[in-house]
């Protein structure tokens, strides 16, 4: 018996099962009462809850969540189409001391893909992959570790107290929050101007301003994190690419990546100017956004090139933590990345600052434009022969 108990505790520590049973079990009565309270309050139809689950109304009067991964839903039946069932399941799951850690859609040990073809992964690394490949999740952490933004919402509106919940440890979530250590959020828009100055297509993603990027009073933006939504593309065939892109055959996911990668990619390699729109979020809202991004890391969204694209889902993530603004309603049926910037700018006081980061090419042009003929000639000769001796008239700095 002792061995059994010990085994359970060890397992518990490894998977986020409540290691401590010291917390008082509020019992089924309390959970039922909360479920009833939520029902009476009509929480399942509140903008905040619908936003957190990315449910949108369907033409037939029902609901459908844009999230397409099974790990995003806790309701046994159909959380994707039933916000109320999902709400109830979420409340019960949060209080659960026993839950299914290996639902049958999880990949079997040793296989990277589940039967549906989706690699099940988390946004962090509670189980650290040894290689560069993403390790599949074979055991799901406790719902409290997976849905921190839902938890904060329910604590807020239902008065759930921390101490009545199972005491679970969430190393992955904590590591993610620590890595983000958010002090500010920017919507980043990158243009593409190379051949067609009249075009302003682009890409949008988020920049999470980290506390650690503030060094001796100066912000080093390059050290921030970018949160990007993009499709995992599995073909190089142009036709398949277009067809799959238009019909939602690519899974899109949220990724995090050091911001300097994005700057190098867009600004240097692709010669695209970058605009950063700082958002006036309260600290509470920033934390909620980071938590919600963590939640989104557990799922994928079928990527529809024309509407459910990067810009749409980035805005959707912001919308989830600012439900009162109804940001998504400001979008047209086809979403251009620039539209999301317009939507945010249309909200009074939401965008507090704009920072422009010219691409390497833009900088080069600006510098070249200021050159004398002699200087330009010297540069050209340097290009053809790096050993060229510069005219004596040039100062060392030039």
């Amino acid at each position, binding site marked *: 018996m002792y061995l059994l108990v010990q085994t359970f505790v060890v397992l518990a520590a490894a998977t986020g099962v409540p290691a401590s049973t010291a917390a008082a079990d509020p019992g089924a009565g309390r959970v039922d009462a909360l479920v009833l309270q939520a029902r009476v309050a009509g929480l399942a139809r509140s903008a905040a809850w619908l936003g957190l689950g990315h449910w949108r109304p369907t033409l037939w009067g029902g609901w459908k969540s844009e999230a397409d991964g099974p790990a995003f839903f806790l309701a046994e039946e159909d959380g994707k189409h039933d916000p109320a069932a999902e709400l109830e399941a979420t409340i019960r799951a949060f209080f659960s001391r026993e839950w299914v850690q290996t639902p049958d859609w999880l990949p079997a040990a040793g296989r990277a893909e589940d039967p549906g073809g989706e690699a099940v992964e988390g946004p962090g690394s509670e189980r650290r992959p040894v290689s560069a490949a993403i390790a599949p999740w074979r055991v799901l952490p406790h719902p409290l570790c997976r849905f921190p933004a839902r938890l904060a919402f329910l604590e807020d509106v239902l008065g759930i107290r921390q101490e009545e919940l199972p005491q679970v440890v969430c190393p992955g979530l904590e590591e993610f929050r620590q890595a983000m250590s958010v002090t500010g959020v920017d919507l980043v828009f990158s243009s*593409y101007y190379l051949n067609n100055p009249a075009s302003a297509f682009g890409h949008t993603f988020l920049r999470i301003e980290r506390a650690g990027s503030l060094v001796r009073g100066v912000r080093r933006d390059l050290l921030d994190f970018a949160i990007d939504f993009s499709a995992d593309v599995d073909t190089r065939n142009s036709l398949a690419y277009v067809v799959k892109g238009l019909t939602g055959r690519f899974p899109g996911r949220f990724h995090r990546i050091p911001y300097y990668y994005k700057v190098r990619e867009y600004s240097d390699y692709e010669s695209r100017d970058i605009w950063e729109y700082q958002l006036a979020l309260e600290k509470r809202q920033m934390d909620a956004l980071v938590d919600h991004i963590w939640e989104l890391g557990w799922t994928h969204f079928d990527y529809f090139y024309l509407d459910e694209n990067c810009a749409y889902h980035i805005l959707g993530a912001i919308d989830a933590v600012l439900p009162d603004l109804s940001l998504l309603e400001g979008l047209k049926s086809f979403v251009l990345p620039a539209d999301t910037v317009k939507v945010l700018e249309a909200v009074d006081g939401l965008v507090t600052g704009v920072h422009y980061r010219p691409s390497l090419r833009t900088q080069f042009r600006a510098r070249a434009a200021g050159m004398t003929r002699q200087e330009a000639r010297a540069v050209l000769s340097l290009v053809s022969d790096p050993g060229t001796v510069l005219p004596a008239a040039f100062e060392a700095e030039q």
Partner: protein
Amino acid sequence: MGKWLRGWCSGVGYTMNMAMEVSVKSVFHVVAAGMIALASSSSASATETTYGAAGCGLGSVLFGDEGGFVQVFAATTNGFFGNQTLGITFGTLNCGEGALDTVGARVFIEANREALAKDIARGSGETLSSLSALAGCADDAAVGATLQQHYTAIFPDQSVPADAVSDAIMTTLSDPALQCTDIG
């Protein structure tokens, strides 16, 4: 329809003027290389095989082992979606966990090699300051000046492997006078 296909969400054109773009880009890069006189690692040089072994940098992914502008072309034309060019996910980019969890100095150097070469050549710049901050150095200006002095040692020629560049920079930063506290 044609308009839609021109790259929302990454905004990369899927049109016939790609060829022109590539040539514009290459000319631009070559001229830029001249601008930073002697900088060893321009994009032009990246089209040679030197970048294939870059390990962690953008270049290694962007140029892969195929090399050449063919790869840039492929990357560009496939760029409907944000990360197609890079394949960045939570744990990839040829770096395993490194690029993701620790925004460490060495990873930073490899990913920012070209921008660093430019900054080190002139002894200052955003990328250089960021490296200095990341490595916990006491004084950005001193770091800039010191690295600038060692420029030719760090970037001896175009074929210098990425590891050697990182090693040389890290060694330079380990000078006690710079008081860099976070260089592992």
